[in-house]
């Protein structure tokens, strides 16, 4: 690719009482990620641009933004995959309050993890011997499939139920609740099932799979939520342990 190719990048700006898209001409480079573009703008065009990132290798989950209308982890999203008619539109993650420019306030997202009791509740003291769990135990296998979440909130931004029902706990918190529901060492199952059976709970999921489509780690929160629905129904009908 030639050194002087450029592309038009519209970046959402907010704060200081003004808001709207601002357009920049940024260089188009080979193997460039969306995060590279945002960083170039901040370093060469407007140092006041606010955005968030840390690891740049898809581990920390802090760099997610809306790119041409879809939620993406920007550090691992190549421009070549998302460029539309030579243009990029970059906006803060959907369904979250914006602090400034591209930086969202993720507090509501994490508060919902707590509200979903998506927190390990040890059933034994630290002195107890380690619990033996076979790798092929079905509950271990179910937890395994859902465990590699990086808390990026891409699924939360992709979920239309979150958009229309601010109470809804959302795919990430519920996905984490599912891993714990399958943790033999966890003693908080009753409280967890109660927490996810309330007005904003797992039963609000429409199972349309936006979360699964966009999760950069290819997790399937839709399936996790379906598991939670079954577990709550089983517990309510008294069919053994959810």
């Amino acid at each position: 690719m030639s050194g002087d190719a450029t592309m038009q990048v519209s970046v959402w700006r907010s704060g200081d009482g003004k808001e709207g898209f601002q357009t920049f001409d940024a260089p188009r480079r080979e193997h460039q990620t969306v995060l590279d573009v945002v960083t170039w703008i901040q370093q060469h065009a407007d140092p006041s641009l606010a955005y968030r990132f840390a690891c740049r290798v898809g581990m920390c989950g802090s760099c997610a933004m809306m790119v041409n209308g879809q939620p993406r982890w920007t550090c691992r999203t190549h421009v070549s995959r998302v460029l539309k008619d030579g243009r990029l539109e970059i906006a803060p993650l959907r369904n979250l309050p914006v602090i400034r420019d591209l930086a969202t306030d993720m507090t509501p997202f994490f508060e919902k993890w707590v509200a979903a009791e998506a927190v390990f509740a040890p059933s034994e003291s630290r002195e107890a011997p380690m619990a033996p769990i076979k790798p092929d135990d079905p509950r271990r296998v179910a937890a395994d499939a859902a465990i590699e979440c990086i808390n990026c909130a891409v699924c939360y931004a992709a979920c239309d139920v979150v958009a229309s029902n601010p109470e809804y706990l959302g795919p990430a918190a519920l996905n984490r609740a599912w891993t714990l529901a399958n943790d033999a060492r966890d003693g908080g199952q009753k409280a967890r099932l109660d927490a996810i059976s309330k007005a904003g709970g797992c039963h609000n999921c429409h199972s349309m799979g936006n979360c699964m489509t966009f999760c950069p780690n290819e997790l399937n929160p839709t399936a996790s939520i379906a598991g939670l629905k079954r577990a709550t129904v089983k517990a309510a009908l008294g069919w053994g342990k959810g």
Partner: protein
Amino acid sequence: MLTLRLYLLQRVTAILMAPLVLGHIAVMIYAVQDGLTAAEILGRTQGSLGWMLFYGVFVVAVAIHAAIGLRVIVAETLGLRGAGLNVFAWGAGLLLLALGLRAVWAVTA
């Protein structure tokens, strides 16, 4: 806005409705194929406890199922919440129930 209780109610009514819908369609096809007149149909349904129960249960299940579904749609698309949402859902359910039971009564009593 869908709690476990509402979710369960909607699933249970769906399970009830599935065979009733099939039964209803079968009856419709039978009536049309055979060219039954309204009077002939009424002759078979009136005074029949079986038909009263069949369509009575159907109407109750539909009223509950539809009211919960409408409740979700109205909450998610129009943003209605709280007491207003409950009033709407109960109102929709009771209206469907009244209309349905009136029809069942007219045909089977």
